[in-house]
């Protein structure tokens, strides 16, 4: 019964995540950028912009230069989460891909890095007066949600052991549109419930920063305005102005 509910929720959450995020991304892509506004240091070629974005995505170049503490916690969290996500692929693949198997021991440590990063970011939000000032309840809740996911995840091996093969069976079932049994233990149900929540809120929250990064004109535009004319459709439709100077000076 509860397994069925979770199965349904997983399908719903997946649709929310993919369709919701997809629609937002489409919206970003379709919204015109009327002016060239790359911010320094701005590359003058497309290749330069690609390199710039690789620096931003792989090691948060701008953040590294602007705030070292946030950078440390952000790197711990994001790279920790990346490894943990890769590690979790084993619950969706049968047989498990060799490189996913390889990463399993690192994945356990990565969870700790992720937790450390989250706690660091949470502490900054409380301790640093400026960041406390700009924080809304949702900013704290988002961190708590992620901390909850990590904690409930660890509890499955440290506190109340969960039969992960059964969980895997459930997940594989979902992928073949079959509903199989989940272990009826609080920690796994909480863990999955929080993950479902995360997937649902992704497209309607600041988690959109992940795809949004690729649509910031200040970072993604090429600095070549003098060479190439940049004109958006709506700007092109403005009433034309005369090339000749109006007579008599007035107006």
């Amino acid at each position, binding site marked *: 019964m509860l397994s069925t509910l979770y199965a349904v929720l997983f399908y719903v959450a997946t649709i929310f995540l993919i369709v919701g995020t997809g629609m937002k991304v489409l919206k970003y892509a379709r919204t015109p950028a009327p002016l060239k506004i790359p911010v320094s240091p701005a590359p*003058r070629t497309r290749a330069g912009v690609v390199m710039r974005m690789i620096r931003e995505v792989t090691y948060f170049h*701008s953040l590294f230069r602007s705030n070292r503490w946030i950078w440390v916690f952000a790197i711990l969290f994001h790279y920790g989460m990346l490894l943990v996500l890769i590690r979790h692929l084993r619950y969706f693949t049968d047989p498990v891909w060799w490189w996913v198997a390889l990463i399993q021991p690192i994945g356990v440590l990565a969870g700790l890095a992720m937790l450390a990063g989250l706690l660091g970011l949470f502490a900054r939000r409380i301790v640093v007066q400026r960041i406390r000032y700009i924080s809304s309840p949702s900013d704290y809740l988002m961190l708590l949600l992620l901390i909850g996911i990590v904690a409930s995840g660890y509890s499955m091996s440290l506190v109340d052991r969960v039969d992960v093969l059964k969980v895997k069976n459930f997940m594989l079932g979902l992928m073949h549109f079959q509903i199989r049994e989940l272990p009826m233990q609080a920690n796994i149900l909480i863990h999955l419930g929080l993950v479902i929540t995360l997937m649902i809120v992704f497209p309607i929250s600041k988690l*959109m920063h992940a795809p949004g990064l690729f649509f910031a004109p200040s970072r993604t535009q090429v600095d070549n305005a003098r060479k190439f004319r940049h004109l958006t459709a709506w*700007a092109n439709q403005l009433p034309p102005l005369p090339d000749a*100077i109006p007579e008599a000076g007035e107006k």
Partner: protein
Amino acid sequence: MAPLDKKDEYGPFDNVDQVFEVPKLACGAMADTHTFEAAPEHNEMLGFPGELLPNWKEVAIAKMGELAEKNRAFKVYLDTCVKCGACTDKCHYFIGTGDPKNMPVARQDLLRSVYRRYYTFAGKYFPKLVGARDLTKEVLDEWYTYYHQCSQCRRCAVSCPYGIDTAEISMAAREILDSVGVGQKYCNEIIGKVKVTGNNLGLNPKALRATLDDLEEDLLDDTGVEVRIPLDEKGADILLITPSADFFAEPHIDGLLGYAKVFHAAGVSWTLSSYASEAANFGMFIGSYENMREVSWRIRQAAKDLGVKRIIFGECGHAWRVAYSFLNTLAGPFDFLDQNYPIPQHILEFTLDEIESGRLKIDKSKNDDYVMTFHDSCNVARGSAMGREEGGQFEVPRKVLRAVCNHYYDMDPDTIRENTFCCGGGGGLLTDDLMDLRIKGAKPRMTALKQVTDEHGVTHMAAICAICKTQFSKVMPKYGYGMDSIMSVHQLVSNAVVLDGGNEDTAEEPETEESK
């Protein structure tokens, strides 16, 4: 407003670390700094309602939605902020005032909170949770207050992991305010003047010619050479577009004399235009694409009318951003100009070419009484470029300075190039009713300057922006410098350039200003 004659109030600046230490939050410190609102006729000239509309709330909300449809930056920036806090200590107005609403993210949030309320799922159904709020008259007033404490300098955008640019939000906010009939006097009055007379000052062609005649006389007296400053001369090769401050303000004029000497020495034919006698484009400050386009268009008209082959811009920061990054978009295509030159070109690019090719004779010793540093103007540094290489906007002015003076030192790396601080008067804030804010906003720059004065004996600072020059000549005295401690880059060029047939020893004696 704080009295302006009390120097102590804006200290301390004897210890550089003290200023770059982030201030404690002083909530509401700048809440009463409310720049003068525009009169109805000034708003109407720009196509905005004269006074606050009765249905302002609906109009403002609709305008916000329209901007989110028309401008990707606005839409994406409102969505992607994660409130990490990396920008919170980057704004010169925050460093100078401690008012938390001058932190870039908090400034954005003034608008983002309202946008969320009306345009996002979370804000519609869970406003408290995500910090969304209704649009009220108080909120509108707050927008007016704090979006006129942003100089759109983009220092926050450089620091943001997502490239969120508060300048874009601030421009959008001002456009929303204008669209409901709440304009700022300083900007809107000036844009109106440009539309009528062609420049921010409201200077008519006759008065302009008379001013230039005086300057030509001065040049003859100083150099013994007939250096011309042509106006409206059809058939000239180069149209010079320069901020109108160059015609009357100090040290701007000395920069204009410098351009004239460089053109003379280079032997090119050039002209100013009375119809487009303004480089600055305040349309950008108020975020109005239409007004910015209309002001830019005059340059195209003047270039066609005079039949020039090239357009060169004088020293002006925001103007150069509009010229370099926007002019092709707003008033292009410039297929009628000579495609062998950058369109438009910066006067420093021209001068550097002349220096490097050896066509310009330079006597560096003429500037030996100055120990120089360079203030990177924010919109040149972060919103435009120069030269052939990336980062040319930093290197070209420095190369010129090093070519014309012997003593040059850079300020702290965290305060120059793309990390430069705004002078404190940019973005439409260069008005006397914001003097308190301007003085406080100049504090980070002044502190960095004080540091190189102490370490290297720097006496003067050069800039390439009309706003920077005006702002610094006003606020530097509050920080213990003379008002002529700020110089035009082309003022130094002017001092050092040697003209053929000129009388030696006539270059004006550099005046030194005793600090304090």
